[in-house]
């Protein structure tokens, strides 16, 4: 058990910190949430800056054009970026963290050559076409059908929860090419400008248009754009998940810690900390977030030494998401009537309650126990795969 960073890890941190300090002042404020073309431009420009400085694909292997950083360096990268207030990966998320790693692991040389460099340079945006209206937690039940016609697949069906669809160039698409169940699924690279794709924005409770529904009507996708063998797409997808090194929520966790600090200062200013009950809830979240930071380091250490992150991922997600929701609830309570507006409002002392960020975070936390595996599915996974309880369903 050693939490001390090595000299080379420390050097990586110092160099990154210096680069962030010199680069971030020129980056500017992010565009409004609903201005998708401006968001794409902003996020891609940040990606290009990372690329030019040698930080693009920090977690990608060097032979794929990435930095090939160790899991601990990946952790440091995310930590420093968050602490410095650097832009989030944004619309580059699917390409950099999901589709890209899949193509690295399973793509043909031509697919790697075509897609990996532009993803790293910030020139190619991806979206994800996995979930369907009738296939959510039970993803293997998906029904979007791809039928061979010469050198193409003809794809018909619908997808849901597709982030960044309006600005995406490509979609990582799971389709049914064979029998029912997870053995009849293939993984395709679908160009988003192909005829027959209809994108319908899906407005969330926070009013955002991050998600869309995709309606696919006889969309032609070349067979050459299939990643992995036909009907082997489920395994291809699982291989990608094994790239996860336990750092998926580092940014969120550190953001929660920062928001908790801001909330405590607001509460202090308003004299609310005299309320022992409120103070305890804040203190409890301090303990929980600190512990989750320690758990992250443990998971990353496992990944660094064994190549797989061990049991930390599901355990982390179950705990973090509920504490993040508790933080959101606390924000609503501290902000009182100011919680009814996301506009900045002055408190009784003339200082702002918050900048609306706490409320935005509150909305966001509601989805955390649903997205990327509901907490109920996560508990089944923990119980069956880690604790060895008998399978059911």
């Amino acid at each position: 058990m050693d939490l001390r960073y090595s000299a080379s890890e420390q050097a990586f941190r110092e160099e990154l910190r210096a680069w962030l300090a010199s680069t971030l002042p020129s980056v500017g404020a992010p565009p409004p949430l609903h201005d998708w073309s401006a968001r794409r431009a902003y996020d891609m420009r940040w990606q290009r800056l990372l690329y030019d400085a040698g930080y693009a694909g920090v977690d990608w292997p060097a032979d794929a054009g990435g930095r090939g950083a160790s899991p601990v360096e990946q952790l440091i990268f995310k930590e420093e970026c968050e602490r410095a207030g650097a832009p989030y990966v944004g619309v580059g998320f699917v390409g950099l963290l999901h589709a890209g790693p899949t193509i690295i692991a399973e793509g043909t040389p031509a697919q790697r050559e075509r897609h990996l460099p532009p993803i790293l340079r910030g020139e190619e945006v991806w979206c994800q076409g996995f979930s369907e209206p009738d296939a959510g937690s039970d993803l293997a039940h998906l029904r979007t059908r791809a039928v061979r016609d010469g050198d193409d697949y003809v794809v018909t069906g619908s997808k849901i929860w597709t982030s960044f669809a309006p600005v995406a160039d490509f979609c990582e698409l799971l389709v049914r090419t064979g029998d029912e169940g997870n053995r009849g699924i293939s993984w395709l690279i679908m160009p988003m400008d192909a005829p027959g794709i209809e994108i319908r924005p899906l407005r969330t409770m926070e009013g955002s248009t991050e998600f869309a529904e995709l309606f696919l009507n006889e969309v032609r996708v070349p067979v050459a754009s299939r990643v992995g063998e036909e009907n082997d797409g489920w395994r291809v997808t699982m291989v990608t998940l094994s790239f996860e090194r336990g750092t998926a929520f580092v940014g969120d966790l550190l953001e929660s810690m920062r928001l908790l600090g801001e909330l405590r200062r607001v509460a202090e200013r308003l004299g609310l900390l005299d309320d022992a009950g409120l103070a305890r809830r804040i203190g409890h979240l301090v303990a929980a977030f600190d512990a989750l930071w320690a758990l992250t380091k443990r998971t990353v250490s496992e990944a660094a030494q064994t190549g797989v992150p061990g049991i930390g991922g599901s355990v982390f997600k179950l705990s973090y998401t509920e504490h993040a929701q508790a933080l959101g609830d606390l924000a609503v309570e501290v902000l009182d009537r100011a919680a009814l507006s996301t506009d900045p409002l002055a408190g009784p002392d003339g200082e702002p309650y918050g900048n609306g960020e706490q409320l935005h975070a509150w909305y966001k936390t509601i989805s955390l126990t649903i997205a990327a595996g509901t907490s109920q599915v996560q508990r089944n996974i923990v119980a069956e795969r880690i604790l060895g309880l008998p399978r059911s369903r």
Partner: protein
Amino acid sequence: MDFRVGDDQRALAEGIRSVVSARLPLERVRAHEGEAVAVDPDGWAALGETGVFALTLPEPAGTGLGMADAVVVFEQLGRALVPGPLVGTFLAAAAGLVGGAAEGGAQVGVHCRSAGPVLVEHLATLDALLVFPEERLSTPRLVAPAPAAGDAVRMADPLDPLTPMWRLEALPAGEPVAAPGAARMVQEGSLLSAALQVGHATEALDLAVAYAKERHQFGKPIGSFQAIKHICADMLVRSEVAQAAVHAAACLADDPEVAAAEAEVGGCTPAEALDRAVSGAKLLADEAAVANVRAAIQVHGGMGFTWEVPLHLHLKRALVRSTTFGTPARLAQALAAFA
């Protein structure tokens, strides 16, 4: 950075586990339920021989290890329900305060002052008593010899039948502990208590999972029902999160460089960073212990409520621990300042 539990630490834990199960098996421990002496001198000496009280003492008197090793060992003591003044004896041995403590030849208790009545554990066998003031970071005092049990009232029916209790009207003032490291004694005591709590939490999880696999109802193991699975999954989450916190806090206690780095991030002094880490770890470990044992009792159904099944002993011990070195409520309130 490599924050995994190391191979040496795993071996150490395994060694302690096997010695304890041979020398202080649950049947032997439980034979003293309700008695004034929870662990006889032979049992205590056997424990001392394993070196659990001398882990951080330099060689040759001890093994020259750190708190990160000590918490791994104390987790095992919690799992095995080992009774007696474990934490106080370790602290006194580490600071060289009481002769014989390191070898299991003396017992040193802990009393953390609170607004409640003065209840002292294991008084009949104590050679000395460490008294921690209500103010968390003030210097502890040593009362040696310990007050005579004959001058105190023994509780006829203490909550934990393996933690005999005496009520005193007042405690002698004792002497301030002057040993180097006195200031850190509260942190080390909190850490060891937290480690014992993690032991109760993980043992409860293992007992619940084993029972859920073997107990059949409606023609199936109850562990195949999602309602039971989710209880068990939540138990694992609580014990893993609490254990990570305890181990991280132990690393901070062992390595000034780590504490300094944490202090820089937190905008505080290294001592405050340690207090934050230790308080958070104790809080989460207290909660994990109590919540996990209660969950294990629920999984066991009616059997969980019997005297025979040892879950109640884990619950009662966990409650005893959560009244020392800061109750969860007080720790949570104090931690708010660190947000």
